[in-house]
Every structure is written in structure tokens, then in C-alpha cells.
């Protein structure tokens, strides 16, 4: 599939439009806040349009995963190539972007959430210019990760997200923002180092034979890494089921588990969420966490099928613990944001459980859950943000009777909460269903225990609704205004998606079905 604008591929536009926006913003005067905001909105808006184009023309039947030919919107340019020198061979790093069924949904999610993040950032007053510049940089990083097919590029985009996030939490966050920011930074940085080392080990273990010249070329190309034939004889990660492959898998896994976050690598998340400003929480929960599971599927699984299968049970158990543990922790919280943060841990656990099933239902469920959870938590954080803007409070016990004050807001927020609770008819249910169905096939008891998580989820969500929306209105909250137009703009698209995908998920599923089936097949044939 070729699609380009001015001779530049659509994915490049998608990734770098925010950077262009950032540069424009940096050139705008500080005072002109509206121009800055509109530039950011414009950049992310263009992304949404591009994503819509992609959604429209994406070929649902192509497989992707390990087959370079069947990726779509491919852009591949030589980035850094150094000719052969003795002992080393040729060095090659490519600018290699492409989409398959695994990433297309994430790209759509990212563009959407990014735009909604901008909308909900409208009332940020402090250092507007810096805020939006960093925000757009962050968006580029996230988008880049989802479309990169070269490990090096992947890594660059991955790490590009670090600093903007650090500043966005650290400068615009709550009282303990500094702690939260450094904690986030530290955790992810540790993961990054692990990934870097694994990436290097892979690089030196993989060399494909360039058909044109017959040279042996070391490459960061993720697709080449999936082919066992490309492993250099005697390379560190060559072979099947070797200790080093397990170690490498584990290193990558820890990196991604931190991002997901999976128990016990999760403690950065509640802090980061609590302190981050609303739009950043939206981005964090809506997109950033998905990078972890996406990374597992894009890198861990197909590159190390042997190690994945070796550790799969371990993964499923961690997922189970995350589901239960996250839900229990959520129940203990009396800070609204923290509650949602822990619920994210629980829900992302479902994703991991789904993909750990290594069958199509589970995979589809997992990836769909990534998308759905992105939308649902975005709604939930927006909901908290609306209340916080009006009352400067986040404690669950501070509220009550909001339903009387802000009925429309309550309606929308409750749809989000019910979706989080896994109510059928809303999107959360569909993906949880498939995840559990897939997982049940693979791990009977783990799944059964995990499913108890949905009871706990129901409990904490309902209590939250009760405390916040129901009951009598406290005196001090008697003059809250309902949603403004801008807030509607942020809420409504997400709510529509929640309902739409809950009722009829096929449009989302068919995007990824072929690719994920192929991935499952690939995994089960041992690579």
C-alpha cells in the first residue's frame, strides 16, 4: 500500500507533524497563547485526519508481523549505512516504518487521544509554550514507537518520550510532582537500559545476507531478527532455548513490564498519575501504557518465540496477580486518580493475560483491550479532571451528589465507569471477554482466579460512583456548573467509541484479525 503526500509517506507525516507543530510553537511569541494552543490542536488534528485515512484504506487481509512484504504504508530508507570493514561487516540502520494489524489500531488510538489531550489542556495557564512544545514532542515519540520497524528507531522513539514526560509531570504536576517525575523517569530509564543491551546483543547476533551484494549485514531490522536463519553462527543469541536468549527475553520483558505496568514493576504509576496534570494522565494511561504490551507483541513474542513459550506461564501468573492486586489496591484508595491508576494496572493485566494465551482470541482480546482501555481511562481521567478543575479536590470523600449538580457530566462519566467495569454493550466487555476466553483455553485456573477481578472491579467502581455521584450534595459543592463545550468535545468522541465498539466491535477486530492470527501461528510454529 502506497500513500504519500508531497512524496513523503503518510506514516512520516503522522510521526513528524507534531514536531513541525512544535517548531512553529517555539517560534511563536510567549504571549500568544491561543495561537500556541491552536497550533497544537492543528497538529494533532491533522494526525487524526491521517489516522482516519489510514483506517479507511488499510488492507485488512495483509498479515504483517514478520513478513516485510505484507506490511502497509512501508517507508524504508537507508539511514546509516557504513560499508564493510574487516571483522565487522556492514552496518545498517534503516528508517523503516510500516503498519500491520497489530499497530494500526494503536496509531488510531494515539492520534485520537493526543487530540483529546490537547483539548483538555486548553486551560493550562503555566508556561503554555513549553507545555505544548513538550506535549507534541511526546506525541511524536509515541507515534514513532508504534510505526517503527527498525529496532534502533524504535528505541530512539521510545526514549524520546522520557524527557517530555518527565517535564510534563515535573513542571505541571501536583504537589509531589518532583518525586513522581523522577520515579517515572528512573523506572523507565532502567527499562530502557535493559532494552538497549538486548538490542545490541540482537544486533550482533543477527546478520542477513544482502541479496544485492552477497554481503553479510548486521541490522537492527526487527523483521530480520524474527528469522532464525539470520542468526550468526556462534552469536550470543543464536540458537533456540539457550540461556542467553532467556536472559535477553527477560531483559526486554522487564522493560515492557515496567511500562505496562505489571506487578511488581508498577509502583511508579500511581504516583505519576496522581501528580500529573489531567491531560498528561490521559496520555499516560491512554497511550503510554500500551507501549509496553505493544512492545511485547512486536518484539518479545516474535523475536523470541522459544523464550516466550518458556516463560509464558510466568507471564500469565504475573498478569493474574496484576489483575487481582490492582483491583484490590484500587479498592483501598480514597484518591480518585490513584484509584483509576490502580484500575489501569488491573486492566492492563487483562491485556497481558490475553496475549499470554497465545491464541487468536486472547491476542485479539488483548490488543482490543489495549485500545479500549486507552479510551476508557482517558474518559475516567477527563472525568476526574473536570471535577478537579471545579473543586480542586480529588478525594472520593470530598464529593457526593454530583449527579444532581452536573447530570450530563454524570451520565458521560458513568458510561466510562461502566465500561471500565466491563459492562456488556460497552467496549470494555468485548475485549475482556475475548481476553478471558483466549486465556481460559490456555490456563484454566489462572483465568478463573483472574475473572474474580471483575467482581472486585465492580465493587470499587460502584463504590466510587456512590461516593462521588450519588447521595446528597455537600454544601460546598452546591454551585458546580455542568460541562462546557470544550469538555464536551473531549468527552463525546470517546463515549461514542465506547458504545460503538461495545455494540459492534467488528470494525476494530477485523483490522487486526489477520495479523494476530498470523502472529499466533508464527509463535506456535516456534518461530
Amino acid at each position: 500500500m502506497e500513500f504519500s503526500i508531497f512524496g513523503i509517506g503518510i506514516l512520516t507525516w503522522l510521526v513528524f507533524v507534531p514536531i513541525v507543530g512544535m517548531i512553529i510553537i517555539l517560534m511563536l511569541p510567549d504571549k500568544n497563547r491561543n495561537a500556541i494552543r491552536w497550533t497544537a490542536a492543528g497538529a494533532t488534528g491533522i494526525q487524526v485526519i491521517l489516522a482516519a485515512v489510514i483506517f479507511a484504506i488499510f488492507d485488512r487481509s495483509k498479515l504483517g508481523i514478520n513478513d516485510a512484504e505484507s506490511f502497509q504504508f512501508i517507508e524504508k530508507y537507508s539511514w546509516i549505512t557504513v560499508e564493510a570493514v574487516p571483522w565487522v561487516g556492514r552496518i545498517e540502520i534503516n528508517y523503516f516504518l510500516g503498519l500491520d494489524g497489530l499497530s494500526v489500531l494503536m496509531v488510531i488510538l494515539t492520534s485520537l487521544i493526543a487530540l483529546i489531550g490537547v483539548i483538555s489542556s486548553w486551560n493550562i495557564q503555566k508556561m503554555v509554550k513549553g507545555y505544548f512544545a513538550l506535549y507534541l514532542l511526546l506525541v511524536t515519540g509515541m507515534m514513532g514507537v508504534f510505526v517503527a520497524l527498525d529496532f534502533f528507531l524504535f528505541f530512539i522513539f521510545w526514549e524520546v518520550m522520557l524527557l517530555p514526560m518527565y517535564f510534563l509531570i515535573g513542571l505541571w504536576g501536583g504537589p509531589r510532582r518532583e518525586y513522581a517525575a523522577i520515579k517515572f523517569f528512573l523506572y523507565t530509564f532502567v527499562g530502557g537500559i535493559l532494552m538497549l543491551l538486548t538490542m545490541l546483543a540482537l544486533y550482533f547476533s543477527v546478520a542477513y545476507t544482502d541479496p544485492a551484494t552477497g554481503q553479510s549485514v548486521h541490522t537492527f531490522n526487527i523483521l530480520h531478527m524474527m528469522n532464525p536463519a539470520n542468526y550468526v553462527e556462534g552469536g550470543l543469541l543464536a540458537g533456540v532455548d539457550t540461556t542467553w536468549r532467556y536472559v535477553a527475553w527477560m531483559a526486554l520483558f522487564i522493560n515492557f513490564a515496567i511500562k505496562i505496568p505489571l506487578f511488581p514493576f508498577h509502583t511508579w504509576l500511581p504516583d505519576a498519575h496522581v501528580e500529573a496534570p489531567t491531560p498528561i494522565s490521559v496520555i499516560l494511561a491512554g497511550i503510554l501504557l500500551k507501549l509496553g504490551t505493544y512492545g511485547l507483541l512486536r518484539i518479545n513474542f516474535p523475536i523470541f518465540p522459544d523464550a516466550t513459550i518458556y516463560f509464558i506461564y510466568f507471564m500469565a501468573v504475573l498478569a493474574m496477580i496484576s489483575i487481582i492486586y490492582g483491583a484490590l489496591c484500587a479498592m483501598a484508595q480514597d484518591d480518585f486518580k490513584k484509584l483509576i491508576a490502580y484500575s489501569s494496572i488491573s486492566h492492563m493485566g487483562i491485556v497481558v493475560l490475553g496475549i499470554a494465551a497465545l491464541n487468536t482470541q486472547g491476542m485479539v482480546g488483548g490488543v482490543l483491550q489495549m485500545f479500549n482501555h486507552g479510551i476508557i481511562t482517558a474518559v475516567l481521567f477527563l472525568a476526574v479532571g473536570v471535577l478537579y478543575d471545579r473543586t480542586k479536590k480529588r478525594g472520593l470523600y470530598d464529593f457526593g451528589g454530583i449527579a444532581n449538580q452536573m447530570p450530563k457530566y454524570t451520565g458521560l462519566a458513568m458510561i466510562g465507569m461502566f465500561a471500565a467495569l466491563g459492562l456488556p454493550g460497552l467496549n470494555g466487555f468485548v475485549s475482556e471477554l475475548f481476553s478471558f476466553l483466549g486465556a481460559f483455553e490456555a490456563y484454566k485456573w489462572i483465568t478463573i482466579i483472574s475473572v474474580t477481578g471483575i467482581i472486585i472491579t465492580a465493587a470499587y467502581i460502584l463504590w466510587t460512583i456512590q461516593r462521588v455521584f450519588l447521595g446528597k450534595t455537600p454544601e460546598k459543592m452546591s454551585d458546580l456548573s455542568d460541562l462546557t463545550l470544550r469538555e464536551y468535545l473531549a468527552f463525546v468522541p470517546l463515549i461514542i467509541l465506547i458504545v460503538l465498539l461495545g455494540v459492534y466491535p467488528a470494525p476494530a477486530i477485523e483490522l487486526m484479525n489477520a495479523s494476530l492470527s498470523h502472529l499466533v501461528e508464527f509463535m506456535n510454529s516456534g518461530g
Partner: protein
Amino acid sequence: MVEQTLYSITQFYPEIIVTVTLCVIIVADLLTKKESHTTGWILLGGFVLAGFTLLLQVGRNESVFFDMIAIDPFSLFFKLILLLAGIFVILFSVQSRELDQYMNRIGEYYMLLAGMMLGMMLMVSSTNLLMLFLAFELTSLSSYVLVGFTKHSKRSSESSMKYIIYGAVSSGVMLYGFSLLIGTTGAVDIYGINEALAAGTDQTLILNISVLMILVGMGFKIAVVPFHFWAPDIYEGAPISIAAILAVASKIAAFGLLIRFFSISFADAGGISATGAWQGVEGIHWNLLLGVMAALAMIVGNLTALRQDNIKRMLAYSSIAHAGYILMGVVILAAEGLTSVMIYLFIYLFMNLGAFYVAMLFSNKIGSESIEKYKGLGKRAPLQGVALTIFLVSLTGIPPTGGFVAKLYIFGAAVSAGWIWLVVIAGITTVISLFYYIRVVRNMYFYGSESGNDPLQFNVWSNVILLALLIPTLLLGIYFAPVLEFARNSIHLFGM
């Protein structure tokens, strides 16, 4: 004999130009008005000219002055980045307020700088132990004095004295090591030594001792654990411009020296292992030794930096840690390691000079080098704040900055050669390093200023210089193919 001398001179223009510039400065210092940086500009011109003549030597690979000096791509690479560093340091010095009160002696400052540059250029190209030692001493002597240039400052004086004592002892020990090596092998140039060693020797005991003693001197210059103790004290006491040149140029030159010395005299050229690493001459574990030193440097440097408040001191510890990272590449040495070291050094030049430069600019304005005093500076000096952030991020090694590429190649080389334990230590310590680098950033941005909120004014030229450091730091993180190519083509040492 005379013919060779004459021919050699034609291959020696860069050094000659630097020497001539030194003489010109001496004359100019007498003639021109004091209190101006005229001599500095002359030296700058000299460096630039030397750089141009250096480019004429591209592709040469020969030995001149009766095997004293090698003119090869390797030395060319090092000389180029040394001159680049020299040029930046002159530009720093011109703006430094620390030097203002010593303007009537500024001529001497630049003379010594010229001498130091000459010494460093010779360091990276010497192939004879005597020449090597002379170059080493020339560099050292100039830097001893430069460190104490602001001699009315107690700290500067103290660091100068510590430096000379430390340096004199280290070079003395190194000389003793040289004498043992010469005696054992019967040769004074590194090729002869290699020949003697390659022929087989059972004198491993004395050779090991001499290697250790030589490492004392070289380790001193590159400031690697356990020979690093001088660095923090001296960096803190020295004027920032000099601290910068010590942290960057002097270290780079010493690495050039170290690599040439070990890779030629002690490496078994025929014995490249399966993983691409060099085999040392049997019985001499110099690469393991260097590996241990690298690990120690990474650990000690990064851990100690956690507690520092003075930015120069912090950067000193950071540069110790970086010496450890670079040494990792030296351990592997072969093509991979060598390339990675050179890439690292090239990038290190920009990022570390950048960090020192911003520290100097801030020190000029707020009169303090304390990191605690940096609070609120991010808002008062946006460009400088962002620049320092990027430099520090680059030093940490986070993409898309040059520092990441540098680390990538070093780590990659180590992984490919199978030094996994070393890489793991490097990884862990990199995480630790995040703390102290980010502390500076945090202070700049997350806190309000305690000493006024008015924006700091910087002139255009300082911004231009800043960008000249900043842009390569960023650009090299995204597109580093030319450097890679350059480094790859520069790994040829004469005689290998």
C-alpha cells in the same frame, strides 16, 4: 638522514604551525596592548590553520622523524578533535570572567595553551617512548601552570600544586615503567617492543610490573579509577575553561596515547579472538586490567557524583565515569572497540564542553558554581537552560542525543566482544548517573529562583558558540553516519 628530516618537516606542518603560533604570541604579547584577547585570537587562527594543514594529511599512513612520529588516520582523527576542543576552549576563555583580573598575563595563558596543544598533538602521534614521555610532560607542564593561572585564588593555587605533585609522581612512576620495558625488550619505539614481545618472552613478571607502572601515568591523564583522585580537586580549583580542556582534550589525548601504546606494543596482531577482540601478548592481562579499571571508574565516578554540589566537581566525577565507559571500548580494542572509542570521544567533546560552557556562563552571571544556586535558572536563561539540559541528557545517554549514540557503540562493542559483565555494570551505573544529572535539571526548572527573577542577558556570540556545541550534540544523536564513517576510516594505526 638530512633528507628524511627535511621530508619529515613537510609532514609536520600542523605541529610546526602551533609552535610558530606560540612564538608569534610571545612576540605579540610584547607588542600589543595588554588587557585584550588579541593573543587569543592569534592562537585561534593558528589552530584553524593547523587544522587546515592537517586535512592535507588525509590518507597518509607513514612514520616520520626516524620512527618518532606516526602520521596516520588515527592521529589525524585525534588531532582534529583536539584542535576543535582547543578552538572551543579559546572561545570560552575569551568570555570567561574569571580570567578578567589576570588580563595583563593573558598572553602567557595562551602561550601555555599553545604548548599544551602541541604536547597533546604529539601525544597522540608518538611512537617512541621517549617522544611519548616528552609529549606527556609538555602537556602536563603547561596544564600544571594553567590550572593555577588564576593564582590569586587560593583554590586555584592549591589545585595547581596538587596537580603538579600528583602529576610528577605519576609520570615518574611511568618513566620507571618505561625503563623496565625498554630494558626487557631492548627497544625504545613501540614497534621494536612489539617485535621483541611477539618473538616470545617468558619475562611476564617484569612486563606486568612495567605495564602497571605505565598505567599509573596514563591512568592519571585519563583520570580513571584508581588514579583519578586528582581530578575533582583540580577541576574544582581550576578556571572553568581549563577544567573543560582537562576534562576533554587532555583526556582525549591520553586515550590516543593509551590506545596507540597498547594496541601496538602489547597486542598480538595475529591473534584476534573469535569475538573480534584483541588478544594481548600471552601472560600480560592488560585488557582484563583495563576492564577492571573501567568498571571501577564507572562505579566510583557515578556514585561519588551523587553527592556533589559544585557543578565542576560533579562534572569531574562524571568525566571519571565517562573515562570508564570509554575504557570499555579500549578493552576490546579491535576495530569495533576502536571505532566506538573514537565515536565516543568525538561526541563527548561536544557534550562535555557544552556542559562546562553553560556552567561557565552561569558562573559569569550568578557568580556561583553551586548546583543549589541554579534554582530557577531555567526560566531566567531559557536557551542556556535548555542547552544544559540537553548536554546533561546527552551525558546520561538518552536518545536522541549524541551521548546515546556514543554509549550505544561502546555498549555494542562490549556486547559483541562478549564482555557482558562489564556492560551490565555500565548499564547499572548509567542509571545511577541519571540521578545527579537530572538533579541539575530539576533545580533549574522545578524550583523558583532565590536570587531574583530577572532574565539573565547573554550576548549573541555566546549564544552562537552555545549553538555550535548544542547542534552537533543533537544532530549526532539522529544522524551520525559521517562520524561513524570518519571513525571507521581512522582506525588505521601506522604499523598495524
